[in-house]
């Protein structure tokens, strides 16, 4: 086939073009023709199709995401907000931290190992592109029912992929979650988060300014993998009978990425780049159009100079390829030689592929013939925006009316004991160490806390002991019952987890996983969840720094539970003051902080014992969350508590069992006045934590809670080799450990 140049396109307006196959709608294609004043060339069509995909353009979600920029809390920590590769916050002492969570859901279903591996690779490059050294990763995961055969197909590959890639990069994996629910069967959620650290002056942005500056592509050669990944995979519903989509999944090489990281950090150190962008979804189409539209001028690229793994690739394929481990830098001419030297040192291939021009167009040539001539903003930022119709689902009222409080409750101590064991051994509540032990949590030698702690924590300064913490949470069951409250509960839980570790929550990133935006029910869930999250962030004072939306997580008509995953980043001045979850000191007193109500809607108990989902999720009180957070942080800083564990799914009993097993000590508990043993153990009321208080600190601690108006109820003591509820039942730690730790290996190993 002859080359489809700009000149050729102008002269042949009536050529049939495969816009539909590339995932564009008819009116979108018409708009491209209108922008260009002619039909697009094949290369231009390729670029628009990937950049205007749901994944890259956020065309369905944009109108709702705007709230994150409008409802911004007063927070002087924000250095870089939404719109860059990742947001950046000030954590003090001249340090800045950048962090973000992204999804790699669809590729991970098709090809679990590579899908998950390249998910890690992509988020790490986003963080690197901001100028930061990546220091930790986290992985919030959702799979189908634990005993379903497809979970056994997908999960081991995903876990091995995350480990295989992340371990080889030398990034400690410090947190995340693993949740099973049949709604994720066929639509696993593989979200990946990364934290990076830099000094304020090292922040880099994705822009191409300064005519004459060189555009350098460096890293791996470009191959035929991942072509159309964003438009085909991430932006469409799976049809069970459709063709195999494997070629659209990228293949990762973590060794190459490790070299890319070290090479890029050395380049940053010598201040050699004027702008930088990683190549992820939409590959070169994205990098060139985003760099050019953020800069002052235009850009010219000679596409035949791109180093290829497969010499037969067409220009369209080169523009669309999502080959991993590539970066694009804009470099002043006098620095090019030194830039190349550093790349050579790290055995990284680097090629000047073009330069910044003083025009306003992105122009791409193929052996001297022009194949792209577009205004870059129309590709990168001025894609279609949809006001998708949405409406409260007709079934929502019936779902909420199906109150979990009416479910039969255990009536004898024996029954209560049996349900406790069933709960702590259920797949969602069981120990995940079989999974997390496949990730390196020690590398870099700065890990202070890692899973199964409430939050992961790494030290970022060895002299001052400054550290950062992160927790990710998202309960799809709560969000299904009430997406507005569900999103706020995800935020509240991650916030609480960070505070429980002793760190002060600063800002959030989110990964919004939903079904098809073309379904008004789903779009309503999305609208409610984003509204809830934006309102919640405003109230808690934690701005949204960036994030990711993953839509079309559904097979046929069945969407996943709405699953907003929230990552909260916190800072701690001195990591030696961190609070672990372990109950380790015999004789310390256990206090329950917060109010316990009859709240079982969406609870782990209702799922494990009754396979039930209905009613309302726990009540949200963000002022209470804030107060609880302040108390936990003060108590940690002033040495008033030795352990803290947030209460969430599974309620008090789950938290106590985890803390006892972690510390190797038992606990004797007493049911407080006014509560039934059942409600005490299994309620999932939000805004609560359990803490271990040394006897010498009891008065000081209770005085502080009293003065601040936070209910603190003494519920027991760390003691013995069992978890005992006085007058009801007792379970030896050994039995709890057996039940808690055997489940996951027996299902998956």
């Amino acid at each position: 086939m002859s080359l489809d140049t700009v000149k050729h396109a102008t002269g042949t307006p009536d050529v049939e073009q495969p816009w539909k196959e590339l995932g564009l709608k008819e009116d979108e294609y018409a708009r491209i023709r209108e922008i260009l004043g002619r039909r697009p060339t094949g290369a231009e069509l390729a670029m628009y199709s990937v950049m205007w995909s749901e994944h890259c353009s956020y065309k369905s979600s944009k109108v709702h995401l705007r709230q994150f920029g409008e409802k911004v809390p007063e927070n002087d920590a924000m250095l870089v907000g939404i719109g860059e590769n990742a947001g950046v916050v000030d954590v003090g002492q001249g340090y800045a931290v950048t962090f973000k969570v992204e999804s790699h859901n669809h590729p991970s279903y098709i090809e679990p190992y590579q899908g998950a591996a390249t998910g890690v690779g992509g988020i790490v490059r986003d963080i690197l592109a901001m100028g930061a050294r990546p220091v930790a990763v986290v992985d919030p995961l959702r799979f189908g029912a634990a005993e379903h055969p497809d979970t056994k197909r997908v999960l081991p590959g995903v876990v091995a992929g995350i480990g295989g890639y992340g371990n080889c990069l030398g990034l400690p994996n410090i947190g995340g979650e693993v949740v099973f629910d049949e709604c994720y069967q066929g639509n696993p959620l593989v979200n990946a988060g990364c934290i990076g650290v830099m000094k304020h002056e090292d922040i880099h942005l994705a822009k191409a300014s300064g005519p004459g500056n060189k555009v350098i592509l460096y890293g791996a050669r470009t191959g035929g993998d991942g072509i159309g990944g964003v438009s085909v995979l991430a932006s469409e519903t799976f049809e069970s009978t459709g063709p195999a989509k494997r070629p659209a999944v990228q293949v990762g090489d973590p060794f190459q990425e490790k070299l890319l990281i070290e090479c890029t950090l050395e380049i940053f150190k010598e201040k050699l780049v004027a702008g930088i962008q990683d190549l992820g979804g939409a590959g070169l189409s994205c990098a060139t159009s985003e760099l050019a539209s953020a800069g002052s001028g235009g850009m010219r690229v000679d596409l035949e100079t791109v180093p290829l793994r497969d010499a037969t690739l067409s220009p369209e394929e080169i523009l669309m390829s999502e080959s991993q481990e590539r970066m694009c830098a804009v470099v002043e001419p006098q620095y090019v030689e030194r830039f190349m030297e550093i790349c050579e040192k790290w055995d990284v291939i680097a090629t000047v592929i073009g330069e910044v021009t003083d025009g306003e167009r992105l122009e791409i040539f193929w052996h001297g013939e022009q194949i792209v001539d577009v205004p870059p903003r129309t590709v990168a930022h001025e894609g279609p925006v949809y006001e998708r119709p949405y409406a409260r689902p007709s079934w929502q009222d019936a779902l909420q009316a199906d109150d979990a409080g009416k479910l039969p409750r255990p009536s004898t101590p024996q029954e209560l004991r049996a349900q406790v064991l069933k709960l702590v051994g259920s797949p969602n509540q069981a120990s995940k160490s079989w999974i997390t032990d496949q990730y390196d949590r020690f590398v870099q030698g700065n890990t202070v806390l890692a899973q199964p702690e409430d939050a992961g924590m790494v030290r970022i300064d060895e002299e001052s002991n400054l550290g950062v913490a992160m927790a990710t949470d998202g309960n799809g069951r709560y969000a299904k019952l009430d997406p507005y409250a569900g999103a706020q509960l995800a935020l509240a839980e991650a916030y609480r987890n960070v505070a429980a570790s002793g760190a002060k929550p600063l800002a959030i990133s989110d990964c919004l996983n939903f079904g098809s935006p073309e379904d008004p029910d789903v779009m309503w869930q999305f609208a409610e969840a984003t509204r809830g999250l934006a309102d919640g962030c405003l109230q808690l004072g934690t701005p949204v720094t960036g994030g990711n939306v993953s839509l079309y997580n559904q097979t046929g008509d069945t969407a996943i539970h709405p699953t907003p995953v929230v990552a909260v980043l916190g800072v701690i001045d001195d990591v030696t003051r961190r609070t672990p979850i372990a109950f380790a000191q015999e004789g310390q007193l256990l206090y329950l902080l917060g109010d316990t109500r009859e709240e079982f809607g969406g609870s782990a108990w209702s799922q494990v014992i009754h396979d039930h989902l209905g009613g309302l999720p726990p009540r949200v009180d963000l002022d209470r969350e804030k107060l609880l957070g302040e108390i936990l942080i003060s108590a940690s800083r002033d040495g008033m508590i030795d352990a803290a564990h947030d209460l969430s799914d599974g309620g008090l009993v789950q938290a106590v069992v985890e803390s006892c097993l972690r510390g190797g000590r038992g606990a004797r508990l007493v049911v407080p006045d006014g509560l039934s043993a059942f409600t005490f153990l299994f309620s999932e009321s939000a805004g609560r934590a359990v803490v271990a208080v040394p006897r010498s600190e009891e008065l000081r601690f209770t005085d502080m809670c009293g003065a601040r108006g936070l209910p603190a109820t003494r519920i027991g003591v760390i003691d013995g080799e069992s978890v005992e509820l006085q007058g009801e039942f007792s379970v030896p730690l050994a039995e709890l450990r057996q039940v808690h730790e055997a489940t996951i290996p027996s299902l998956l190993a």
Partner: protein
Amino acid sequence: MTARIGVVTFPGTLDDRDSLRAVRIAGAEPVSLWHRDKDLKQVDAVVLAGGFSYGDYLRAGAISRFSPVMETVIDQAKAGMPVLGICNGFQVLTESHLLPGAMLRNNHLHFICREQKLRVENAETAWTADYTAGQEISIPLKNMDGRYVADERTLDELEAEGRVAFRYLDFNPNGSLRDIAGITNAAGNVVGLMPHPEHAVEPLIGTGGTDGLGFFTSILKKLVNA
């Protein structure tokens, strides 16, 4: 007077900065060594750190063994210079034939990361003199290819000569023969092990213990007193 201890960075080495930190915390002077340089910068001892040098492609440690820096390290080690190989570094040492045996993929085929109990079997090497024979220590372990194997005769020889330096206790995490976690050469200057002492040198960080610090204080004392 202190000692200069070098840490080699191969492409794909991950724990080089951790090892440099451990050297510094022990009180020695850390020196970065680069795989392309034959020059060891007058260091008194060398640490081959953990990671995935050259991506572990071909076989863990197989490519690094042919790097310029290893030419000098191998010569100097044979002449008595202390060398410690941790994890991937241990794999490089067996590939270099400075230590016998080889490492296979873990018997359960998964990467494994855990706090691991070890028994120090030989407290007379250059890197273990600060421990006592029979001492139990707990340090992180993290590997994919950590299953130590050798033929029966070699294993018997190692045992007879007291060259099994460390053994896994309570749990063998990778299927290593005779629970071997680390070995030494006959002269006691070259030691290799799979677990990571450099991750256990500070309270609160990693496992929260400092059981690994002894490796670095052992070598420092030996070099300073030499």
